């Protein structure tokens, strides 16, 4: 169709033609497609280079089908934007003809005719694959670094928390607590100075417990000051004040850590207050038991008091509830065995623990008693609460042990937070450490079921670098067996199995850099495991980290694949260049040898011409001088002229044969009955005339060996072989020529001629190549004149006859060339041959 030949400018005017030409020259892929159908109507050379489809292949195809276009949102969105703005710009992924993908920056515009009706859409696509790969690599590295930093920070926070918690457990007075905390936070947050202040009951303002660095004024919070309240169970006990240099403020994460530390500090202060209370009440314990109970009954901690014999003399209601009793009175009234039946005790790692190991009992026996983390399990529900137990001794004026005060603080929530932080840190590490993103995801699921959930599932949607699949982990044990069995039956029922066995389930999308990979879910099979708002945050956090790791791995893989593709292309290119270099070198060699051949051939042709000229001039001189014409001498001269002319014609024939051979054309053989024995004798006699140093001997089994051969060309082959034998035995010697008749396979009879010399021979490494055109053996090159075409020509002539030529030689000992000719040539009737 004529319209198809027009360029994008459309009307075929000279300007349009020039524009069209320009578009052909640009590196970018330029194409024009119809508005309604997206059918390609123009396709420049750049497009052919970029996509691999020629203009003819592309024309008439639907663009997004031909290129399997991947749109950022959808094709409809691009078209809508084109219709509305007349223009669209963005990135697309196209598939090349070879199946590889290319990222292009695409600019598209609608072309309208004079009346404003959309005519076509012009697309200019620039290959940005390499740039995108570099960007992806950069993003990946940045994200990886960020993930590592996150993980390191989380671990660092944990370590700080643990250090301070350990130290605080030893502090018995508010002042000790204050100085420990302030020392820790001032250095940890790089503050100029700071203070811990406590609010004394009944006073107007806080009093300083401890201060460090620059003394803080009473001017209240300033821009460079951070104030964190110390709160226990909703009561404000005091505050931590930190002052920084140059108006520096705390980052979100630092502030969070400071708040956790403040909560620890507040709890330690509260505990210290309880000790003080217990000690001060000691003197009049019996008198004011009710007063003590009134004070201790209101605190959040469990408090028990033992006498010097270990007998429980006081327990508040919180302590009682921890052991499974309704009130302190009920606990105090129960027998020891009864108490032990009400609860079970485990250490931090979940191993059963004897009450003998509790710090109070240790102190009673005069041993050291550090803070202890315990789990107290309700034998009925199986639910465990975590507590920290601190115990302290109260002595009388003589130093005699009077009482032991035990304080149980419920840390179940705090433990859970720590577990969550540890889980996030471990998950980040697992995701960043493995090269296989799915193995990392599996590891995250395994970690989640160890500490926070009974069940964790990651469902990938597929299509964004990963196939649709489910990675899940289930906490082993009796409780989860039914769920594991149900899930084990296959994916289609996963939703039903979850619905049937999970009592709670939380999910968050796996989203990173605008891509959604799927969802991450946590589930619980029993009511004892809480999944609340804290876990919702955890799920989202885990999902964000997992998605980031998946996206990083995808980008990395794509960048890697791109690099590999480039490497393959480069290797192919290098190979092509090497091939071209080899071909070029072959060509140079061929040209060199051809030049040598031409020089040699012109020399060979000039010689007979020179002889003809000289002989003719000689005859004329003689005719000029002599009064009478000597007819005999004249006849002799004319005969010589004739012979030289014949020789020259033979030479021309030979050169023509060579030209045919070079063009790969067969010889036009002039077959006629030829006696090989007679031919050989003739040649030997002729060659013998030219040498006195050599002896030429002809051996023949039969008086005649006759075949249908081209006598002229065979004479040339044999003359050449004998000539070589003479030329390459410069020291003289015997040259024998043997003619034989030999029977071959399937009744075929052969004539053979061996030409044997005692000359310099041919190096064995070169035997294979001496029949190649222009090849000359290394031991004669430059020493003995020759064109290097005689043997190649001989082979050509013999093979045209259906025969062959071969050689055996030993350097320094001589060579034997063997010619084989079929006695009944294929295609030649026997009658013609025997005539």
């Amino acid at each position, binding site marked *: 169709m004529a319209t198809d030949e027009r360029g994008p400018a459309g009307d075929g005017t000279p300007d349009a033609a020039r524009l069209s030409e320009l578009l052909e020259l640009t590196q970018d892929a330029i194409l024009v497609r119809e508005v309604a159908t997206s059918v390609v109507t123009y396709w420049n050379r750049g497009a052919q280079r970029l996509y691999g489809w020629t203009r003819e292949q592309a024309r008439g195809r639907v663009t997004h089908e031909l290129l399997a276009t991947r749109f950022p949102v959808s094709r409809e969105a691009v078209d809508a934007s084109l219709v509305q703005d007349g223009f669209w710009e963005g990135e697309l992924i196209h598939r090349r003809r070879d199946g590889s993908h290319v990222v292009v920056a695409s600019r598209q515009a609608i072309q309208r005719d004079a009346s404003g009706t959309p005519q076509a859409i012009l697309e200019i696509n620039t290959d940005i694959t390499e740039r995108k790969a570099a960007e992806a690599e950069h993003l990946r590295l940045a994200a990886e670094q960020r993930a590592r930093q996150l993980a390191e920070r989380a671990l660092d926070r944990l370590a700080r928390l643990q250090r301070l918690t350990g130290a605080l457990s030893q502090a018995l007075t508010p002042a000790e607590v204050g100085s420990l905390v302030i020392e820790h936070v001032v250095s940890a947050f790089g503050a100029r100075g700071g203070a811990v202040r406590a609010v004394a009951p009944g006073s107007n303002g806080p009093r300083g417990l401890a201060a460090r660095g620059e003394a803080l004024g009473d001017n209240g919070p300033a821009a460079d000051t951070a104030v964190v309240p110390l709160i226990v169970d909703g009561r404000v006990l005091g505050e931590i004040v930190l002052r920084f240099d140059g108006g520096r403020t705390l980052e979100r994460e630092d502030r969070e850590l400071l708040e956790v530390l403040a909560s620890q500090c507040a709890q330690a202060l509260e505990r210290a207050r309880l000790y003080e209370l217990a000690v001060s009440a000691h003197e009049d314990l019996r008198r004011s038991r009710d007063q003590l109970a009134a004070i201790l009954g209101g605190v959040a901690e469990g408090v028990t008091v033992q006498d010097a014999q270990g007998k429980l003399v006081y327990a508040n209601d919180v302590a009682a509830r921890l052991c499974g009793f309704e009130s302190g009175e009920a606990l105090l009234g129960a027998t020891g065995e009864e108490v032990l039946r009400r609860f079970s005790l485990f250490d931090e790692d979940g191993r059963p623990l004897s009450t003998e190991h509790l710090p109070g009992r240790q102190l009673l026996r005069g041993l050291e008693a550090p803070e202890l983390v315990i789990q107290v399990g309700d034998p009925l529900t199986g639910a465990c609460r975590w507590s920290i137990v601190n115990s302290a001794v109260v002595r009388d004026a003589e130093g005699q042990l009077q009482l032991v005060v035990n304080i149980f603080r419920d840390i179940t929530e705090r433990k859970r937070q720590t577990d969550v932080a540890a889980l996030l840190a471990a998950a980040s590490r697992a995701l960043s450490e493995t090269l296989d993103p799915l193995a990392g995801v599996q590891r995250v699921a395994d970690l989640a079921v160890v500490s926070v959930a009974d069940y964790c599932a990651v469902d990938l949607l597929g299509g964004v670098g990963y196939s649709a699949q489910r990675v899940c982990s289930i906490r082993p044990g009796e409780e989860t067996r039914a769920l594991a069995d149900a899930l084990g039956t296959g994916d289609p029922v996963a939703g039903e199995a979850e619905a049937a066995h999970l009592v709670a389930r939380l999910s968050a999308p796996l989203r990173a850099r605008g891509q959604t990979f799927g969802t991450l879910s946590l589930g619980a099979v029993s009511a004892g495991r809480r999944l609340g708002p804290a876990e919702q945050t955890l799920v989202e956090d885990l999902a964000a980290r997992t998605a980031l790791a998946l996206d990083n791995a995808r980008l990395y893989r794509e960048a890697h694949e791109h690099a590999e593709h480039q490497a393959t292309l480069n290797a192919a290119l290098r190979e092509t260049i090497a091939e071209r270099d080899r071909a070029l070198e072959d060509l140079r060699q061929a040209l060199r040898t051809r030049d040598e051949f031409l*020089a040699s051939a*012109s020399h060979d042709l000039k010689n*007979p011409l020179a002889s003809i000229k000289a002989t003719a*001039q000689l005859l004329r*001189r003689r005719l000029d001088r002599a009064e009478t014409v000597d007819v005999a001498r004249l006849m002799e001269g004319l005969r010589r002229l004739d012979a030289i002319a014949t020789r020259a014609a033979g030479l021309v024939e030979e050169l023509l044969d060579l030209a045919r051979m070079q063009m790969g054309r067969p010889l036009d053989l002039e077959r006629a009955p030829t006696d090989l024995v007679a031919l050989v004798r003739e040649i030997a006699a002729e060659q013998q005339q030219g040498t006195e140093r050599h002896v030429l001997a002809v051996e023949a089994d039969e008086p005649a060996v006759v075949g249908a051969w081209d006598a002229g060309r065979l004479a040339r082959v044999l003359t050449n072989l004998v000539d070589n034998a003479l*030329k390459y035995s*410069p020291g003289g010697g015997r040259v024998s020529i043997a003619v034989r008749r030999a029977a071959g396979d399937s009744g075929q009879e052969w004539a053979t001629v061996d030409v044997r010399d005692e000359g310099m021979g041919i190096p064995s490494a070169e035997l294979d190549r001496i029949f190649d055109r222009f090849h000359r053996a290394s031991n004669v090159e430059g020493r003995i004149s020759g064109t290097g075409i005689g043997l190649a020509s001989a082979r050509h002539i013999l093979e045209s006859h259906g025969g062959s030529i071969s050689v055996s030689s030993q350097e320094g000992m001589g060579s034997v060339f063997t010619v084989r000719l079929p006695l009944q040539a294929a295609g030649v009737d026997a009658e013609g041959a025997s005539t």
Partner: protein
Amino acid sequence: MGPRVLVVDDDPDMRLAMHEVLIDEGLDVEVAADGREALDRARTRRPALVILDITLPVLDGFTVADELRLRFGLVPILAVTADGRAAYKARRVGAYAYLRKPFELETLVSLVKRGLADP
């Protein structure tokens, strides 16, 4: 008999033509078909002048020229060659003149006479 001239050429017809035209000029002419034969002939009797084809089998013209000068000192050489770069080759063999094949016999005769007259 005139001065002795040695004609060295591997083409028998060329050899014969040069031989006969120089005999007609009254010179003592000897012929050789290759380099080795040329040296053998020269050894037997010193030539007054050598007509030397450069492209020869067995021993080429350059070797023959070197050998001749080594043995007999300055022998005038008239170089003959069929291929290109004749002037260069003639200089290399130390010839007093050269002829490019095919050539006029008259030129050959006059160059030989000049070579014999002005050694």
